[in-house]
C-alpha cells in the first residue's frame, strides 16, 4: 500500500487537516512526522492513502488548509517529496 504524508506545522493544524478530511469521508491518521522530513524539528503529519490524495488536496484547498509539503512513502520505507 502506498501512503502520502501531508506535513503540518503543528499538532493543531494536523488535527484541523484530519478533521476536514474525515468530514468528506477520507480516512486520515495523525502521526509524528518522521525525523527525516520534519524539517525544523518535531512536527506532525497526516497520513492518507494513495487513492485519496487528489480528493484530499481538493478538500483541503476548499477549507483553506492547502499543505505546504507532501511526501510519498516509498516501498523501501524512504520518503520522497511530491511536487504539488
Amino acid at each position, binding site marked *: 500500500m502506498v501512503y502520502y504524508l501531508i506535513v503540518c506545522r*503543528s499538532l*493543531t493544524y494536523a488535527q484541523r487537516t484530519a478533521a476536514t478530511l474525515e468530514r468528506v469521508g477520507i480516512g486520515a491518521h495523525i502521526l509524528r512526522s518522521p525525523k527525516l522530513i520534519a524539517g525544523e*524539528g518535531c512536527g*506532525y503529519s497526516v497520513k492518507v492513502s494513495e487513492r485519496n490524495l487528489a480528493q484530499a488536496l481538493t478538500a483541503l484547498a476548499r477549507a483553506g488548509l492547502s499543505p505546504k509539503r507532501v511526501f510519498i512513502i516509498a516501498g523501501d520505507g524512504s520518503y520522497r517529496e511530491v511536487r504539488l
Partner: protein
Amino acid sequence: MIYLDSAATTLQKPPAVARAVHFAVGHLASPGRGGHPAAQRAGETAFHCRTLAARLFDVESPEQVVFTSSATHGLNIAIKTLAAPGDRVVISGYEHNAVTRPLHALGARVEVASGPLFAPEETLAAFEKLVTPDTAAVVCTHVSNVFGYVLPVETIAALCRRRGIPFILDASQSAGVLPLSLRELGAAFIAMPGHKGLYGPQGTGLLLCGEIQPATVLEGGTGSASALAEMPDFLPDRLEAGTHNMPGIAGLMEGLRFVSRTGLRRIRGHEEQLTALTVRRLARVSGVRVFADPDCACQAGVLSFQIQGMDCEETGAALARRGIAVRAGLHCAPLAHQTAGTLEAGTVRASFSAFNTPREALALAGAVEALAASRRNPPR
C-alpha cells in the same frame, strides 16, 4: 452554604467537569509530545476543547484559541503585544487590576474613558473622545466584576475598527453568559478565564487571537519546530510553551459542553432573573444601598451593595456566618470603585451562576435585611 461568589470562581460545576479532571490525571499525557496513545488522547481532548470554544465564540479556526492559566495571563499577553513603554492606551473606568497592573508595569500612558455606572451612551462618548490615532490599544472589560455593568463593547469595538485601533476585550465576567463573537467584534484579542462562566477548573483560561501576531511572554518547548531557537511563529504553539494543564483543559472542555448545551440565552435569563429579584428585595430595605440598573438591561449577574454604618468586610463576614458566601472589599478593581465613588468604603458583591436558585437570592436579601435592621436597632 449558599455560594454567591461566582464572579471570582464558580464553585458548583456540572458533574462531568470533575469526572473529566479525574480521568485526565491518570489517562492524558502531553499533547504534541509523543505518538503514544496517552499523548494522542490528550491531543484529541485539547483539540476538542479548542473546537468547542471556537464554535461558542465564533472564532474562525481552533488554532486561534490559546490555552492560558487565567484571564490575567491572556491579558498580559495581549497588552504586552500591543503596547510598549510610553504608549498611549485607553481603558474603561471599570477595569480590573489584571489590566491596570500590566499597563502600569509596562509604563504605558493610560487614559481612562470614564463614565457613570449603567450609562452605556456616556461610556461610549468617553471612548469616542479619547480614542485618537496615536492610541496604541483600547482595553475594555465586557462586564464590571464589581457592579455587573455591561459595557457597550460592540459599539466600542466598532469605534476601534473605524479608527484602526487594536481592541482588547476582557471577557472575564461575560464568557459563558453573554454572546461573544471574535469575528464580529474584530478584536485583536479576547481574554477569558475558564473557571468562571465556563465552569472549568481553576488554573484555566482562553485567549482568542485575532489577526495580530502575539508577543510571547513565556518561551520554551512546544513539541513543534523544535530545532529552532525561536518560538514558532504559528498559533497556538507560539503562546503555549511548556506542558499543558491537561486536567484543567479536560474539565474546561466539559464546562464548555455544558454552556453550549444549556445555551447562553437560558443562562443569561436565569442570572438576570436572580439579579432582578435580589435588587427588588434589597432596594426596599432601609439603610441598604444597592448599585443596580433599574431595569437590569445593562447588568449581568453581579451586584454590589452597602449596608449603612457597617463596614463591607464586616457585612461579608456576617453573611459568611449565616452560610452565605459573598465577596467584600475592592474586588481587585480599585479603578471601578473610584469611578463609582466607592473607593473609600468598598462594597459587598453578590454574583450568581447557572446553579443558583431564587430561594438562595431571597435568602441573601433576607439576611441583608436582618443585618441592616440590627444596625438600625442595635440590641441593648
